[in-house]
């Protein structure tokens, strides 16, 4: 644990510079200049209706996705507190190992007008709508909410709760004043782990939105793969990156304050 060992970090630092910092600088340079010199038009293009609308839709869907995942996960975590076995939590983690794209394809087959679910819920076709996209996102990201929230709730000491009971707290108070604050860490990391992928997703909307749901991720993907406007794509990526890093930063600060 001396000077020598610092050398061990050199490949790691070179790697960070070469594959994280330089690529981000590249995005930045593509975003703010083109063959005509410096310009802000690519970054500001986020204000165009055709980009603003997808961004707002992404934010909206990501927000709903976080809320729904929390609403599902928190009661589940409380119920699972009385289950000691790891087998149960293992059951909730397992779906993460199925290939994501195939699971979403399976949803497509389930939700189609002549799909598997149509036998049970006839004439309610939700495939190729915003709702189907939201459902796919929730499916994809739910395990990322369940795991940290479960871990946080499972770690709450039973004695603390007993204490609260003995001091006369009611159920609601125990939940709001004791359990939630103690599980805060897990909830915050669940929010980050769901919000960021939901905000930037393009695969789910591509598969379950039928080309009618355009999220900001789809717009960026299109700019790079089909529309050949890398400057515009980079400009929008930069904006998206700012949104993502800002949201994680805010949540992170929030978490820290709690302990200071």
């Amino acid at each position: 644990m001396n000077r020598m060992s610092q050398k061990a970090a050199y490949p790691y630092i070179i790697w960070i510079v070469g594959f994280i910092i330089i690529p981000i600088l590249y995005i930045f340079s593509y975003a703010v200049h083109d063959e005509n010199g410096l310009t802000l038009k690519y970054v500001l293009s986020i204000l165009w209706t055709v980009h603003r609308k997808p961004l707002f839709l992404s934010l909206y869907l990501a927000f709903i996705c976080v809320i729904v995942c929390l609403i599902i996960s928190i009661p589940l975590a409380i119920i699972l507190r009385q289950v000691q076995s790891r087998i149960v939590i293992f059951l909730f983690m397992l779906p993460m190992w199925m290939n994501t794209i195939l699971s979403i394809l399976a949803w497509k087959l389930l939700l189609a007008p002549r799909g598997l679910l149509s036998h049970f819920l006839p004439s309610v076709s939700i495939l190729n709508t915003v709702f189907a996209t939201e459902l796919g996102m929730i499916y994809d990201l739910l395990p990322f909410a369940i795991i940290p929230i479960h871990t946080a709730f499972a770690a709450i000491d039973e004695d603390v709760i007993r204490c609260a009971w003995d001091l006369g707290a009611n159920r609601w108070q125990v939940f709001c004043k004791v359990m939630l604050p103690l599980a805060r860490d897990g909830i915050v990391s669940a929010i980050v782990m769901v919000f960021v992928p939901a905000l930037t997703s393009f695969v789910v909307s591509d598969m379950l939105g039928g080309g009618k749901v355009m999220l900001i991720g789809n717009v960026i993907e299109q700019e790079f793969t089909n529309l050949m406007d890398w400057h515009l794509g980079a400009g929008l990526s930069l904006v998206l990156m700012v949104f993502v890093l800002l949201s994680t930063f805010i949540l992170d600060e929030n978490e820290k304050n709690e302990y200071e």
Partner: protein
Amino acid sequence: MRKMSMNRVNTFIPEWMKKFYVGLILIFLYMPIIVLIGLSFNNSKYYVSFGGWTLKWYKRLFTDEIIRDAIATTLFIAIVSAACATIIGTCGVIGIERMRSKKVILAVSNIPLLNADIVTGVSMMLVFTRFLRLGTLSVLLAHITFEIPYVMLNVIPAFSRMDRDIYNAALDLGASRAQAFFKVIMPQLWPGILSGFLMAMTMSIDDFSITYFTRGAGVNTLSTMIYTQLKRGVNPSMYSLCTIMFLAVFVLLAITNLRDFQKTN
């Protein structure tokens, strides 16, 4: 006493409702997986119509060259990238320990973890198309990059728990630095390194977005191959392949968890 207080929280909701709730979520999570497993045995090539049971898609897994290539590429990239990421990440954890800029370095290396996959993929594509050809190598480099933070996530706790006095004691007792490192430090870090390696491999196998933007001619991992096939109809052998992979993970996790399960009973 313990049991009692727990019951007090939980008797609020009747037992059957809790079971119903847990069951409902499990159904939601497993429904698509059951569909896929079902499809892997379905004789008809067209998703929805059922054409009788068959094993032919499983047999084709072993004869279809394109699928074999994709499996080989996926595993090759997963194992090599996870190994590289584990080595670089572990050395990084040990090396930056004493550095003054440790916090900044960690924050930067965590960027791929926090950032949007699509942005990470695109940024690396911009650099790779400039400096080298897109191919297997570019996917490999990209995977190593986004796996390093996952490795560190697992190694750092093990490293901070480590007892440093033993290392110094070993040196005092005449061990060389290398000996002390391999005989004292490594054994304490192993569990973290291994779980980091496994996590990196899992992330690599399941990644789509980053591979999608950095892959080159003819390089397909399972995820990108399935995505390309979506437009033309997915080769049903993909269902069987993913069923096999899913069941393999199931069995492995079941074996490792079974001991805990027996312990608690």
